[in-house]
């Protein structure tokens, strides 16, 4: 279903795609495919704003990361930085 939504969103050749928890309720292999699709969109010059609970999977395909809490952005920076900084990840994301 998520793949169908993604294909549909791409029909109008958008410059920006917003994804609200595309991995919700999906099996791991499918989520990995969704994340690969996100990377492909990026390589084709489409910007992606990805909202995710699965922080590690999302950070792995992202360039920049924003952590939100109660309506505020409490952290922003390169995604790789957050992914590699275990204490900061723990503090901000709990994982």
């Amino acid at each position, binding site marked *: 279903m998520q793949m169908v939504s993604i294909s549909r969103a791409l029909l109008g050749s958008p410059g920006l795609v917003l994804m609200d928890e595309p*991995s919700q*309720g*999906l*099996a*791991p*292999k*499918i*989520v*990995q495919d969704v994340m690969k699709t996100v990377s492909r969109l990026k390589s084709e010059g489409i910007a992606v704003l990805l909202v995710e*609970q*699965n*922080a*590690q*999977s999302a950070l792995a395909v992202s360039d920049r990361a924003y952590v939100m809490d109660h309506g505020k952005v409490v952290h922003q920076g390169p995604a790789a930085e957050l992914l590699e900084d275990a204490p900061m990840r723990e503090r901000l*994301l*709990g*994982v």
Partner: protein
Amino acid sequence: MTETPLLHVDQVHKTYTQGVLNKRVTFDLQADFTIEKPGIVGVMGPNGSGKTTLFELITGSNNPTSGQVRVCGQDIHQVRSDQRDRLAIHYHQSYQVRHFRKRRPNFMLQPSSTDYPKVHLFDEPQFNTQDGYIGFMLDFFRRLREESRLVVLCVHPNEPFHLRIMQEICESFIFVQKGRLTQAPDFNTLLQNPDVTAYLGELVGSQAA
């Protein structure tokens, strides 16, 4: 005499068909297993494999085409529907509340030290990274377990730490694929199933990291 098993799914078949005259089977679930004792059982499987149907059959909200489900010795489909949740309860994904800090679902506030229900089926509880949420859920599962209940936990592990949680908390596993069940007595046995490794994809091997 042996004790009555907590859960006995006795040759249950559930067949969904399409069409009136030319009936065509669109989905067929077959389950036959017994869980004798309290414990935490992990359930995994691809989307559409029959996990939720299985949970519905165990709580009696869905009728099997054939076979019987007995919870604590009682045929769940013969129990009055308003009494079934005294035996088995199905927590849907949506029981999770967004404003977790302010409010918890009612069932979590209730003291669980009553005699019922004995079987708790959690259907994809979201291990969100809100403060303390995961720890709270794990404590809840363990408390139910200590109170001699059966916890069945259906999760799609999507992050390495999800898989570690399942490995740590579940005492045995059931893998569901295309309406067929495979039981695994432990995590290592589960991972020996090629269908399981295909389902997990790149997560396999990453759980050691």
